[in-house]
């Protein structure tokens, strides 16, 4: 028991945060910075730090300096809540997170509870990459804002594109067996059915998340089904390994993906030699030609040697500044009100807006394919010499999906 006192004495200086200086606005960045997801988390952190520099160079937010506080959540919901608590305890009023819808759901829930129990100390949660639709539908809440297109929106855009591709006849769905993968699969079935009832879904596979080391058996199944197109929400190693196995077996199909651009993805595509046969649905790539995006891409590559994975992070922080300007305050409650319905010129060109009903941001969505580059000035990825090429743009109105959210406003 004596040890307890000692430990407590040691704990105190560490967790008792210094009084927050009024001239900085801190955003708690809650994402993995150690463990399996760290490489992704670090990229996000660098992106946000770049953004903070940008904002501060222009005089900050309402005169306050913007600071990003990295908080390592080890991609674990429980750990995220500890980090959230830590952030709140040190006076942070804005948190952002992106990796893992499970984490986002936990954070969203915790932020809502905190805000209802601690009026006057509200915290806002900015979600930059967790795409489970549930967060802006059944589990929506007023304090959560999402800048990434959720998976339904992406599927809406993807199927809008596929509608006119008459060579697509047999589609195979392969997804990770968890909430995101399941929503991809359900929506693909539903939306394809609505837009292309002639397309046959010849396979619908759910495989365990991040546990498969050899996708050869799955590829054998795809091959046996005679599919000409595969739709997958797979990310990380589940994507890289899937493509690797496909290349090994000589499977020649078109791949419609959500996350082919993630770390390791471009390398895997290049290895398989599938030139412009792997498509990705996203809010844009620098090769799309928007001047703002190109500029940012250059800075990120020069400074950190990473590509811009998160154009939405730019939309997010710049919109925060805009909302604060509109509200003439950085008080989270006022900023939240200002954000609702706010329109914004997005990084990759075009208009987007934060829908008031569910706090989901809508923006133009691009379908791009990965392969050899016609133009030398274009960006390649992961030093493969290949890069993204925009195939189609789906404008904001065509990406709209309904929401079941019944927002409870304070």
């Amino acid at each position, binding site marked *: 028991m004596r040890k307890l006192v000692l430990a407590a004495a040691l704990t105190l200086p560490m967790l008792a945060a210094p009084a927050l200086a009024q001239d900085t606005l801190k955003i708690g960045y809650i994402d993995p910075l150690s463990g399996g997801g760290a490489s992704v988390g670090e990229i996000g952190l660098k992106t946000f730090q770049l953004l903070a520099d940008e904002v501060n160079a222009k005089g900050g937010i309402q005169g306050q300096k913007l600071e990003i506080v990295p908080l390592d959540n080890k991609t674990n919901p429980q750990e995220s809540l500890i980090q959230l608590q830590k952030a709140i305890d040190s006076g942070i009023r804005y948190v952002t997170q992106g990796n893992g819808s499970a984490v986002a759901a936990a954070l969203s829930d915790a932020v809502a509870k905190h805000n209802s129990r601690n009026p006057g100390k509200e915290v806002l949660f900015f979600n930059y990459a967790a795409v489970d639709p549930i967060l802006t539908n059944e589990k929506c809440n007023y304090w959560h804002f999402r800048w990434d297109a959720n998976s339904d929106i992406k599927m809406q855009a993807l199927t809008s594109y596929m509608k006119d591709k008459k060579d697509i006849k047999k589609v195979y769905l392969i997804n990770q067996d968890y909430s995101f993968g399941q929503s991809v699969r359900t929506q693909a079935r539903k939306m394809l059915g609505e837009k292309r009832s002639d397309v046959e879904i010849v396979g619908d596979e759910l*495989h365990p998340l991040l546990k498969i080391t*050899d996708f050869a*058996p799955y590829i054998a199944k795809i091959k046996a089904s005679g599919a000409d197109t595969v739709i997958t929400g797979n990310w990380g190693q589940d994507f890289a390994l899937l493509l690797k196995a496909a290349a090994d077996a000589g499977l020649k199909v078109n791949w419609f993906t959500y996350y082919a651009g993630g770390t390791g993805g471009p390398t895997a595509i290049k290895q398989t030699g599938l030139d412009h046969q792997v498509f990705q649905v996203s809010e844009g790539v620098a090769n799309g030609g928007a001047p703002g995006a190109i500029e940012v891409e250059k800075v990120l590559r020069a400074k950190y040697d990473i590509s811009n994975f998160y154009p939405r992070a730019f939309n997010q922080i710049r919109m925060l500044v805009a909302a604060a300007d509109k509200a003439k305050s950085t008080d989270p409650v006022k900023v939240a009100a200002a954000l609702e319905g706010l329109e914004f010129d997005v990084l990759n060109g075009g208009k987007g807006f934060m829908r008031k009903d569910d706090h989901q941001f809508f923006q133009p969505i691009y379908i791009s394919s990965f392969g050899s580059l016609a133009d030398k000035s274009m960006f390649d990825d992961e030093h493969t010499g290949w890069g993204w090429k925009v195939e189609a743009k789906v404008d904001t109105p065509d990406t709209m999906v309904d929401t079941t959210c019944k927002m409870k406003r304070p």
Partner: protein
Amino acid sequence: MLELIVISTLNGVLFGMLLFLLSSGLTIIFSMLGVLNFAHASFYMLGAFFGFQLTRWIGFWPALIIAPLLVGAIGMAVERYGLRNTHKHGHVAELLLTFGLAYIIEEIVQLIWGKGPMDYRVPAILDFPAFTIFSTNYPAYKMFMLLISVAIFIGLLVVLKRTRVGLIVQAALTHPHMVGHLGHNVGQVFMLVFGVGTALAAIAGVIAGPALVTQSDMAMLLGPILFVVVVVGGLGSLSGAFIASLLIGLVQTFAVSMNGSLASLFGPLDPSIGPSLLTDVWNVTIAQIAPIIPYLLLVLILIVRPMGLMGTRET
């Protein structure tokens, strides 16, 4: 359908042989030293990463030789300076040492190579389809993997049957307490056995690295399956490990190619039943539960036959 069976069988046997490369070393180490090496899959991972790095520097073929030697040397050092000193604290302490070691190796690999997947490629000379069956290619590299594992399997048999150390190992497999009577060089034999066991795991790592993903979590993914293999086969039984490796390799490969569920067998449930445990169980496909089948098998085997398929010892 037939092509699915042929391809799945080949893949299953291949995965099984890889498992055997690891489980054989694990089994021999367990028989000799009485300790289940929790870090065995970590040596497999080290093999893959060393293989990757050496391939970059000096090419794949030298790496195939040197990486296992390096890993074997590390294994010997672990035995000499780690396990031997911990032995006096009992088997639990030894098991915990290897448990901690698995943890540290993963962290060091992450420290050096980062957390992302490595760009570890199949050597160009083997990068072609070996044969095409019903329009599905089977990569030559996988045939090469199969060949290597079979060659090592045969080599292992020869060593066990024909050499002095092999005889000692065999004696240890059947009569573990006999190991104590080896005389003054028992330490050297232990060290050698640990070195060879970890080197075998490293060979598996070097050849599996390009075919599967070379990433810092590969040990964590494979480790538990490995224990399933040695326990299902029977702790301390080489033939059991062989059978269990193939069994689990095949079962896992075939399971993913099956879409059957209770719903497809008996028809869907009445939709008026809302989401519940029943609907979960009813609708889950065999493919979905493929990765947990080994654990189900483990628990079943241990209930029915606690000493494993071919085991003679109960603990």
